[in-house]
């Protein structure tokens, strides 16, 4: 107690001032700078090496020295690496911020769409569409491109809704019931996926495996253009749900006492979570733990207020998934490690540490 009072007397030390700047006005510039550095790294490394000094010419920023080589670099960058980078950025941002929204909605720092079956629900719907859709369509008329994302979104929406019904009975949200219900839902969805794997043919099987392990391999500009609006909607919604989520931390009744239209906030949040998770699952499969690691780290640094936490999660989630994806395609090159496997390898131990530290709070 005395420390905080006495601490105000003199000027704060340089370290504290820097920290205050980085967690205050310079937070977003710093996060974006970090993202830019990782993005440049992601442009440079990979099967076809493009050293840093050749990047500006390949992007058309400077005059080419060797026209043929620049043309090759250009092709690799513009049609392979940049769409993949953009995809990782958008999906990483969506995974992290939907995790943060879910944790706020359920007042539970352990909530993550991938962990509690929301991603599995999306993947089940996508897998169902692949297998059953294939049987329904005539060879000549393939399924429209957008139907998989829509199916994944609906699958995620239904799962989130069911989870909310199960976990929010009465006034109190039980963290144990929430996690167990999520576990059961994930198991059910995975059983459904297993059933589909059983009846699928070879090509369908390959497609389904893609949903389960997660990959950013198939990124194209068309897909980026399809998915980016989802992120834009999320970021636009932040000012409207940020304060409500803050007040919801005290409890639903208390949020209502302080003037929050709680039911509407819950509906908006659930649709956002489902849309983000569904879109991410549709284009990159199930990628876990980004949604839990990123908001948790940020809460330690900038505090739990959602108006800053949500956009900051988007920035750091983008950076982390991009770094993970770059690692996934380089550590075992020319083969690719599935990114869902990689994030789980790093994220699951993190989750366990978190669980142990929160044990008293979780009442498990």
């Amino acid at each position, binding site marked *: 107690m005395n420390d905080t*009072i006495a601490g105000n007397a003199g000027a704060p030390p340089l370290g504290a001032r820097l920290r205050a700047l980085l967690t205050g006005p310079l937070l977003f510039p710093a996060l974006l700078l970090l993202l830019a550095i990782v993005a440049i790294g992601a442009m440079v490394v990979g099967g076809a090496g493009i050293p840093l000094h050749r990047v500006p010419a390949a992007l058309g920023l400077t005059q080419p020295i060797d026209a043929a080589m620049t043309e090759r670099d250009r092709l690799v960058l513009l049609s392979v690496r940049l769409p993949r980078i953009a995809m990782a950025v958008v999906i990483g941002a969506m995974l992290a911020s939907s995790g943060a929204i879910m944790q706020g909605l359920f007042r539970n720092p352990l909530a993550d769409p991938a962990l509690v079956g929301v991603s599995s629900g999306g993947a089940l719907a996508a897998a169902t569409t692949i297998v059953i859709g294939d049987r329904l369509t005539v060879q000549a008329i393939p399924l429209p491109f957008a139907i998989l994302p829509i199916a994944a979104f609906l699958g995620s929406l239904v799962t989130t809704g069911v989870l909310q019904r199960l976990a929010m009975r009465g006034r109190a949200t039980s963290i144990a019931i929430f996690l167990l219900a999520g576990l059961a839902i994930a198991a059910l969805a995975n059983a459904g996926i297993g059933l589909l794997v059983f009846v699928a043919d070879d090509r369908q099987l390959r497609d389904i495996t893609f949903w389960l392990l997660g990959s950013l391999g198939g990124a194209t500009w068309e897909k980026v253009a399809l998915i980016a609006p989802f992120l834009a909607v999320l970021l636009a919604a932040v000012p409207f749900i940020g304060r409500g989520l803050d007040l919801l931390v005290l409890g639903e009744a208390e949020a209502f006492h302080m*003037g929050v239209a709680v039911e509407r906030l819950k509906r908006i949040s659930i649709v956002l979570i489902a849309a983000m998770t569904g879109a991410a699952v549709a284009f990159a499969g199930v990628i876990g733990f980004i949604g839990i690691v990123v908001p948790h780290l940020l809460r330690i640094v900038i505090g739990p207020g959602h108006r800053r936490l949500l956009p900051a999660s988007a920035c750091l989630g983008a950076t982390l998934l991009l770094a993970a994806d770059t690692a996934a395609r380089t550590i075992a090159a020319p083969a690719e490690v599935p990114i869902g496997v990689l994030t789980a390898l790093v994220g699951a131990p993190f989750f366990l540490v978190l669980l142990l530290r929160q044990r008293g709070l979780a009442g498990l």
Partner: protein
Amino acid sequence: MSAIEVQALSVRVGAKRLLEDVSFSVAQGETIAVIGPNGAGKSTLLRTLSGELGASDGAVLLKGRAPQAWHPRDLALRRAVLSQNITVTFPFTVAEVVRMGAGERRGKAIDAMADAALAAVDLPGFRDRIIGTLSGGEQQRVHFARVMVQLACGEAEHGPGILLLDEPTASLDLRHQLDLVSVAKQCAARGTTTIAIVHDLNLAALMAERIIVLGHGRIAADGPPAATINDAMLSAVFGVTAAVGRMPDAGVPFVLPHRAEKSRAH
């Protein structure tokens, strides 16, 4: 116009009758303590007044309108509620929690208001502490400060408001119980209407000028402390035999229960 009107209110959840034909009217600036045994319907009454629960029959009017007829944001500017057992999952600081009471309002005036509220609950210097690290009683006082800020913000725009307290003193030590009573009295002096559920009958008598006794979802007694807290009521509603005395100066009753009665009509 009275601040609160409760007209033939009944609340049923499923087949359970929680409140039955409850009617009373509260003038602006009155301080009322609601007492009664466990399961008498006290919390149900408070939740209905706050707008959380709807009436099954009859009506509740806050400043002339049913709570559900207000937008939650407008209602929050006219009535503030302190609930029990609030847990804050995320590491918000004490100052952040207290400022939540101010809604979207920011700035120096709000900071000063929050500091004053923290001083009023005897927690100056706790601003930057994480609320989860405080003791239960300290957290309860932080939430009381938050509710005071909400009330003050609303009263600045719309005049005297309504304060609903659910066992505000439950986890407080004696001194802070009395502090809370004096803060509530200051509010009443400004014209705030207060309804508090209180378990401690002595504190209820000390705090309120009027006491509503609930038993089995109905009003068993309604009146000033001296008229409501007596042997007959304690026996009929609480099922206890108690010595009821009077404090020498103001004639406020106090209760020393000494025996539970064997046969209770339940």
